[in-house]
């Protein structure tokens, strides 16, 4: 009887341990499933070609869809009075561009800053801003309608967030970097946080992938 009782007790204990482990693993997996994965960006291999738009660059010259063709374009929407996020992204732009120039394999790339603050970002100010970061970069501005003719197609939003008695205001704006291929298709949206090394690696993969698709 004693041996039988011991066996029964052991069986119950083992069953409880197994049940406990099972519940533990299940609960743990449920918790993992509840944490959404961090989206680092999106790739649109079959996106539509952008429609014609018309803007003004930092030299005061017209900038339209044709200026995107034949080159890969990294594009960021911001404003010059933005003291934190925009200089950070422009500094990342500098790092990416420097890395792209190193190997001479990606010379067909342009870095474009699009102002979403037409009231303050005059052509002169854009020229100063662009020159400060890299004279080879492109700054785009224009009227609100001109800005929207491009931003609307890319799903970029921006709006005034705060105004003070002194007339200063902040502008909320998309923080992602847009990648446009040499045919004028928006192929990727790269979300924050932006790390130059990571973006460079992703760009090379995207470029290789799309080139293979084109050649196949």
């Amino acid at each position, binding site marked *: 009887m004693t041996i039988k009782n011991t066996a029964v007790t052991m069986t119950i204990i083992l069953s409880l341990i197994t049940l406990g482990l099972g519940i533990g693993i299940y609960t743990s997996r449920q918790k993992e499933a509840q944490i959404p994965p961090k989206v680092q960006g999106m790739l649109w291999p079959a996106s539509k070609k952008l429609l014609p738009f018309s803007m003004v660059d930092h030299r005061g010259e017209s900038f339209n869809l044709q200026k995107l063709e034949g080159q890969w374009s990294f594009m960021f929407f911001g404003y010059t009075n933005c*003291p934190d996020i925009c200089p950070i992204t422009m500094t990342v732009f500098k790092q990416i561009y420097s890395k792209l120039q190193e190997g001479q394999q990606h010379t067909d790339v342009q870095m474009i800053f699009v102002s979403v603050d037409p009231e303050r970002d005059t052509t002169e100010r854009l020229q100063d801003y662009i020159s400060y*970061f890299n004279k080879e970069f492109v700054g785009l501005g224009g009227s609100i309608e001109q800005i929207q003719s491009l931003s609307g197609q890319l799903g970029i939003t921006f709006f005034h967030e705060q105004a003070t008695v002194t007339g200063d205001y902040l502008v909320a*704006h*998309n923080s992602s970097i847009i990648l446009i291929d040499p045919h004028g298709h928006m192929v990727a949206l790269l979300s924050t946080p932006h790390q130059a090394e990571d973006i460079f690696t992703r760009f090379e993969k995207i470029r290789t992938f799309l080139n293979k698709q084109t050649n196949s």
Partner: protein
Amino acid sequence: MRLFFYSFIMMLLPGSAQLSTDTSIIEVTNAWISESPPSVRVNAAYMLIKNTSDQDIVLNKVESPDFERVEMHRSKIREDTAHMELQGQLEITANSQLHFKPGDYHLMLFNPARSMRVGAMSTLILYLSGGRQIEVDVIVKKLNLEQSHKH
């Protein structure tokens, strides 16, 4: 000189009725202003503030003799949109720290009274609870993300 640039411990002024007179209760290190392009009339400033005391401290506001106005902000990315949230007061709980750093808390400095190119020095005045004021020497530097990420 390097120590001078990167490590500033404050000057605690009189009027410290509620807080300890121990000058080590607040440490401000790595204070710097990010240089802006010449035509831009705003700058961001960053620093690390450590409350080494056993009492909570509130940072009420910041001023500078070299800027028309200073505001405390926090950058936030919500649903892929960058926002800057104005901060009224910031609490630094006992034995904790408040890090003003790129992409997070920062000071927004409006309309510099003089040129703020790399290497220029300025002063920030931190107004704390208990009537305390701390003057912090701050240097203008170029934004360096690699350095910022180390802090």
